[in-house]
Each structure stands twice: as structure tokens, then as C-alpha cells.
């Protein structure tokens, strides 16, 4: 048990040093890389390691007679978590999300330190000592708080009320609800039931399973599957349409959406927000093909009221592409990212 806890303590110390280095900019936050595709679970595992590490450290310090008071354990862990979110995770997390996470951490730390009466008493003790002010140091502290807390509150209020020159916060709806149907080149498409006419098997019938078996692999690198290379001239049917969609994409779309479809094209950074990242599981992977068809056809100006503010400069592609070309480019996007379009059956 002791050996296990010592190992935990080592992890805890190493973790604190690493995070400290990141906070003071001695160690770049990319020292331990967040691996693309594994980042979300990596973050949780890292925090879990810290929790185990801190438990080990606390155990060892306790055994050495140098126990950290419960009060500082609670406060310390909460501060650590805030620092972790701010300095470890990249790209930077917006303040609103950090505030949500920070509040959850504060509540759960409270749950931990007050889970039983003994711990709660230990936690409260330093606060009660300052409030009771039985010693000179505590009395001094009490006066200091009496002065500092109003100043801090006043400072926060001033800061909150002070007019700022930065752009206001936007609660933008990334995926506004689509209409029930859309009219493109004179034909009405019902979004709930329409299908991509080029997602077909060798027999020419609509077949998602067939196309799903031929998209790139989702694992590291997004590699093409053997015998599923659309740029092979001999290919017919689905893969041929993917190639044609790819040609349209590189002639029209990649300037903004990027040649890796990750929203980082040549012109991407002229816009804010930058164009949609199709490789993210929160974009096309969440949507029906018909949704994409509607968005591509109608562009930024075709967004409904719900999509306000309409921060999209995508042109209405129905003015430049045929219906077939739009369906093919969508086919290519799903093929290239390795995602399956959403279906409801």
C-alpha cells in the first residue's frame, strides 16, 4: 500500500511541477502533447492521474507527520483545477466554459471536504479561528479580510461595469434548425426524406452500408482503405462520384475549408469564426446529408433567424453549382473525413 501511495505521490509531485512550469511559461503546454483524436479522454485521464497523485502525496505527507490541513487541500485542489484548465488545455478554453467547470469543481470539492462531520470540522477550523480571532495573528488576518474583501468585491464590480472596447459575447447557434423542405433549382427537397442520389452501390441503388465501407479509416491519419481509391481511373459508381465531388471541392471549397477539410484553408483566417471544421465530430458527423445540402445551397445568407448572428460568408452555392455537383461534393466531404451521415432509421 505504502509503495503504491509513494508512486502516487511521485506522480502528484511531477504533475505539480509540470503544471507550475506551464503556469510560469517555463514549460510549454505542448510538452506533453494532447494527441488529436484522443484529447477528450486524455484530459480526463490526466486529471484522474492528478487525483491519484494528490491522494498519494497526502498519504505520504501524513505518514511523515507533515499532513496538509484539510482546508488547504480543498482550496489547493480547486485552484489546481482552474490552473489546469487555463494553462494546460490548448487551444484555450473560452471563459464561459471554464467558469462552468470551475463551479462544478468548487461544488464537488465542497462535497468532498464536507462529506463527513470530522472533515467538515477540519475544513471549517481555520475559518472559525480567523472569525473568533483568539490570537494576534488571527486578529490581524480578520482586519485584513475586513479591508480586503470589500476592496476585492468593489474591484470586481468596477471591472464588470467598466465599458469595454472588445466585441460582445455571441450566443451563436452553430446548427440552426433547417426548414422542412428547401427549393433548389426549381425542385423541392424534403429534408427528412431526401437522399443523396450518388450514394449508390454497384447496382445503382441507394446504399449507405456500401459507401460506409469505402470511406477513409477514422483511426490516426485518416487513411484510404485498400481498393477504395477514388483517384483510380478504373473506379466507377460511388468512388467515381467521390472523385468528381473532390474535384468540385478543390475548385471551389478548399480555399476556405482547407485541403484537409479542417476549416483551415488559405483564406480561412480572414474570417471570424473560421469556416466549419468537417473533421470535428460536432459538424457534419452530427447532421443528415440533406442538412448539408440545404446549407451549401443557401449559404450564409440563407440562414434562418434562429442562426443569428449570421456569422457566415459562405456563398449560396446553388448560384454556382448544379444540384448534382452539390450532392457530389457532400459525398466527398463524408468520404474524406471518414464520417457517416446521420440517419434516423
Amino acid at each position, binding site marked *: 500500500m505504502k509503495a503504491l501511495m509513494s508512486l502516487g505521490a511521485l506522480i502528484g509531485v511531477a504533475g505539480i511541477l509540470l503544471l507550475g512550469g506551464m503556469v510560469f511559461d517555463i514549460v510549454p503546454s505542448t510538452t506533453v502533447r494532447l494527441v488529436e483524436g484522443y484529447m477528450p479522454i486524455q484530459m480526463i485521464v490526466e486529471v484522474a492521474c492528478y487525483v491519484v497523485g494528490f491522494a498519494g502525496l497526502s498519504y505520504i505527507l501524513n505518514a511523515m507527520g507533515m499532513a496538509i490541513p484539510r482546508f488547504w487541500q480543498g482550496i489547493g485542489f480547486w485552484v489546481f483545477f482552474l490552473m489546469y484548465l487555463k494553462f494546460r488545455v490548448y487551444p484555450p478554453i473560452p*471563459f464561459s466554459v471554464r467558469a462552468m467547470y470551475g463551479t462544478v469543481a468548487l461544488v464537488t470539492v465542497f462535497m468532498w471536504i464536507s462529506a463527513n462531520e470530522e472533515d467538515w470540522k477540519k475544513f471549517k477550523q481555520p475559518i472559525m479561528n480567523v472569525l473568533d480571532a483568539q490570537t494576534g495573528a488571527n486578529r490581524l488576518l480578520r482586519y485584513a479580510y475586513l479591508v480586503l474583501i470589500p476592496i476585492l468585491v468593489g474591484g470586481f464590480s468596477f471591472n464588470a461595469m467598466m465599458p469595454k472596447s472588445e466585441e460582445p459575447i455571441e450566443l451563436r447557434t452553430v446548427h440552426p434548425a433547417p426548414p422542412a423542405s428547401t427549393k433548389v433549382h426549381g425542385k423541392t427537397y424534403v429534408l427528412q426524406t431526401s437522399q443523396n442520389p450518388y450514394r449508390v452501390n454497384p447496382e445503382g441503388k441507394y446504399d449507405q452500408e456500401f459507401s460506409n465501407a469505402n470511406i477513409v479509416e477514422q483511426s490516426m491519419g485518416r487513411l484510404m482503405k485498400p481498393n477504395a481509391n477514388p483517384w483510380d481511373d478504373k473506379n466507377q459508381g460511388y468512388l467515381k462520384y467521390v472523385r468528381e465531388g473532390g474535384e468540385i471541392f478543390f475548385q471551389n471549397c478548399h480555399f476556405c475549408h482547407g485541403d484537409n477539410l479542417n476549416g483551415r484553408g488559405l483564406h480561412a483566417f480572414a474570417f471570424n469564426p473560421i469556416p466549419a471544421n468537417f473533421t470535428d465530430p460536432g459538424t457534419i458527423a452530427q447532421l443528415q446529408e440533406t442538412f448539408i445540402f440545404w446549407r451549401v445551397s443557401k449559404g450564409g445568407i440563407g440562414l434562418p433567424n434562429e442562426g443569428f448572428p449570421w456569422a457566415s460568408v459562405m456563398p449560396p452555392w446553388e448560384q454556382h453549382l448544379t444540384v448534382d455537383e452539390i450532392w457530389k461534393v457532400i459525398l466527398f466531404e463524408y468520404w474524406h473525413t471518414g464520417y457517416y451521415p446521420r440517419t434516423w432509421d
Partner: protein
Amino acid sequence: MGPLTSKRVFSVVALCMMVGLLLLPVVVALPSLANGEEVSAGDAAKKDGEKVEKGRDVYYKTEGIVVGAPAPVTTDGPKDYPRYNFESRVLLWFANQQHLYYGSFVLAVPIFCMIIEFMGVVTKDKALAKRYDQLAYDFIKISLTAYSLTAILGGILIFTFLTLYPAFFSYLSGIFRPVMHIYALMFVAESGTLYIYYYGWDKMREGFLKWIHLSMSVILNIIGTLLMFLANSWIGFMMSPAGVDEQGRYLGNIWHVIHTALWNPLNLHRILGNMAFGGGVVAAYAAYKFLAAKTDEDRAHYDWMGYIAMALGVAFLIPLPFAGYWLMREVYAYRQQMGITLMGGLLAWLFIIQATMIGILFLSTNYYLWQAMGRMRGAEKYQRYIKYLVFLLASGFIVFITPHTMVMTPAELKAMGGQQHPVLGNYGVMSAKNGGINVIITTTVLSFVWYMRGNKVSTVSWAKFGNIFMGVFFFFAYINIIFLAIYGYYIPANVRVGLSVPQVATTLSCLFFMFALNSFMMKGAKQMGAIEWGKISARSQYALIMLATAFTWMMGLMGYIRSSVRLFWHVNEIMRDNSPWAYTHTVGFAANMISFNVLFFWITILFVFWLGSLAAKKVPVEAKAGIPGSVPQPATSH
């Protein structure tokens, strides 16, 4: 025939007659339903020699004879939208919400009474049986005053509809005309049964009559549930209309109008929600009484009452997210844009608030259970592991509340390099969220298991094996839930939706198997000490109050979301809302309005509690016999 037998026969006959009389109005009304308007309208048309006009059902796609008027095309003016110098929608919102709160409460509490009374009847321990009986009586007493308030609020709601939305209400009542009076008559049946059930409590306290009394609670709850189903059919119709043609003309089949695409998911969701809400309110009542108690005896009684109410409420809270998931699935299946408006579009931020409230509910429950372990000796051994449960809960919670659409300044957006965050973006989708909530629920189950074995040591020969088995079971449950959450990113969406089934199955397996195994292991277990009812921290009682407040707030929120998703429709795609208030409120306004409704409900329910306490002063002294705390209580009573 002896006197006892004749008394029994008389009781059964009396009960049957009572049920028969109460249901008579409903039965009388049924033939007109069975014949339907279809036939009479058809006959009338034939008599007049007119051509019968047929319409196509917008949902069922069947043909039917048009028997109703089209949905009115309203215009903004005093005819269709008469108003006070105030936003009519907000007035209706307030009246509706208050009626719903009380309606939910009075439907849920009799179900609790039925369960608790049944537990009292089947329990062999006489002292415990008496306590259960008294508890059930306390519950129904609270609901009786609330019942009157429900009726009053129902009247206010109807007047609000009639005065502020006459065209819409006239159309809706025209569509539901065949069942409108059944609804009203069932209300009479519900009231009658409730009053007999309450006032007959003492007369029917012993023996066979007790069973008759218990049967009445079953009848009461059947009527109450049917009432709710009927009320649900109206909101189901407004969201996903059926039984009418494209112009909104009734086609003569009332079953189609009632049985809309969302009716059954709404029914299930509301039953579970009402139960969880009712449990929360009663638990808060007990917490309030506990905190105000002057004697140890009272503290012990209300501590126990709070625990039972909390346990019942949470028992229905656990399956609630799964019922909600089914409802959302059906919403998406019915109209994709409705689903996206709810969960990915306009109302998505309200869902994040909802996720936060769900998280608070489970966190409060866990916190209460950990606190409750403090009143039993021997539970200390679990205390040092609580921090790991906290970590699991926090991780699940953080994932569960991560928004898909983040609020940020343009500068933050630029620094992030796009709308999608590579780490947090993955938490914002359903696959991760399903994992998050299942981790939270499984951890809650684990807390319950720890609580149930807190002061006991298993004495069965296979105790060691049992403990290891339980540990391994929970470990692999977590692994399975997290694995499926990750795997969900690599498969098509329609398969991913199906992954929720094994995830839920894993969580429910933990619930049922581990509870059962734990019960077997703890049979004849060595007691480390009695449960010292009343010796629980005040923090635990605040957790119960937090639980109830979160329930109330969440009900208000979800009701608003469900109603708002129709956007500018009174009846989705059939009858347009042309009032000046056909826009969606801002998140801030909605949150303030919900908070106001919650506050108002709690102020009025405090009044109800106060009325209950006035009556309690008249309760004979012997009714309080057996209240825990006066003597050491058996540890098996949780």
C-alpha cells in the same frame, strides 16, 4: 354466514358499487365515443343528400370524413387575442405552470401513499407497520389541501385561456369535445375516491378492511393516471397533431387525436417526473420540519420521513433520463427540425441548463447519502473512498454539461481557432453525454449500495467472493459505459443512437443485480450499530431542499422548452400563433420567469404545509406511537 364474512362481503360489494358509481359517468359517455362523430356526421350528410367531404390525416395518413371546422386563421386584435395591458403569454405561462406543479404533486403523492401503505400492510414488524401507515397518512394529508389548490388553479387556467386566447381554446376544445366531459367527470371520480380514501383511513385501519382501503388507493391512482394521460393528449396534439387534415379539420377519430406521435413518450416521462417531483417536495417538507424540530423524537421522525421520500423520488429519478431520451428520439423521428431546434439550435442552451439541473439532482442525492452514513456506526470505512466517487461524479457532470455551442467573445473564438474545440467539442455531443450521465447514475447506485451496507458486515460464507464480484461488476460497468461512449464516435449515427441501450442496460444491471446481491449478502448480517435517526447533519437536509428546488426548477424549464419548440405555432404546422408574442423569449427572461414560478410555488406550498401542521395539532397522541427515535430502531428499516 358468520358476522365477519358478511362484513367482508358487504365491504367488497360497497367498494364495487363505489367504483361503479364513480365510473358510471365515464361509461355512459363511452358509447358516443365508440360511435364517433364520424358516423353521425356521415349520416347527417347522407340525409341532406350532400356530398361527403373527406380529408387525409396529417400524421396517420388515413382518410376520414371531415366533421370539424378548420383551424381558425387568427389575426392580432381584440377578437382573437383580447388582452390586459400585459403580455398574455406570460400570464398563461404562470397559470399553466402553477396548475402543473400542483397537479403533478397531487398525482404523485397518492402513488407514494399506495406504496407506503402497502409496505405497512405486508411488513411483519408491527411497530414498523404502524410507522409506515402513519407516514402514508401524513402524505395524503399534505396532498389533500394541495388538491383543492390544484382545482382552483385549473379553473384559473381555463379562465385565462377563455379570456386571453379564445380562438385557440375554442378550436382545441372543439377537437377534444368527445373527451372533454370525460376528463371533467374523471376529476369528480378522482375527488370522490380521494375523500373516501382519506376520511375512511381510521375506519378501515384493520384486517380485511385495510386491504379494501389499499385497493381504493389503487383505483385512485388509476383514475389519476388516466386523467394525466388525457391532459397529455392535448399537449401531444399541439406538438405533433394527428387526427386532423392539413387545415386542422377533425376527421372523426378521437383515438388518432389522442394517440399522437409524442403521446406515449410524454406519458411515461410525466409519470416518472411527477413521482420524482412529488418525492422531492415531500422530502423538502420533512427537511423543513426536521430543521424546525424542537425534540429528538420529532427530528428522528422527520429524518426518517425525508429519507423515505428521497428514496422513492430517486427511484423514479434514475429511469427519468432514459425516458427523456426516448421522448427526444421520438421528437427527432417526428420532425428533424424540431429535434435540432431543441438540442442543437435555438433552445440548445436551455438543454445545457437542464443538464446542469440533472447533475445537481444526482449530486444532491449522493451528498445526502454520504451524510446519512454519518448516522450509522460502522459506515466510517467508506468515508475515505468518497473522494473517488466525487471524482467520478465531477467527471461525468463536466462532460454532461459541456455545451455544443459555446458562449465566447470573438477574440476567444479566434484564439480557439474555430467554432469547434478539439478537446471540449467531443464532450458536446450525445455519445459523450450518454456516457457522462450513465457514469453519474452508476455512481449514485454505488452510493446507495454503500449506504445500505453501511452499518452491517455480511456473515454469509461467500461474503468475500460477493464483495469481489460486486467490485468487479461495478468496475466493468464503468469500463463498458466509457468504452461505448468513445466507440460512439466511430460508428454511424443511427447505430450510435442504439448504443444508448447497452449503456442503459449496464446502469440498470448495476441497479437491479447489485441491489439484489447486496440484499442477499446482508441477510442476517452482523450489525455494527443501529441507525440513529435524527442524528444527521443539517447539511443533509439542505441537500434535500436543494433536491426539491432543482426538481421544481427543472420541471418549469422543461415545460417551457417543450412548449417553446412549437415556435410560432399554437398547433404545430396547423394553427399559427399570430399574437404579438409568437417569438421565443431570451434565455435570461425565460430563466427569470421559471425562477418566479418556482418561488411562487414554494411560497404557496409552504402555506399548504402550514395548514397541514394546523391539522396535525389535533392528531391523537397515540397516532404518534412508534415514531423512531424514542427507542433504538432496528437497522433494517431503511
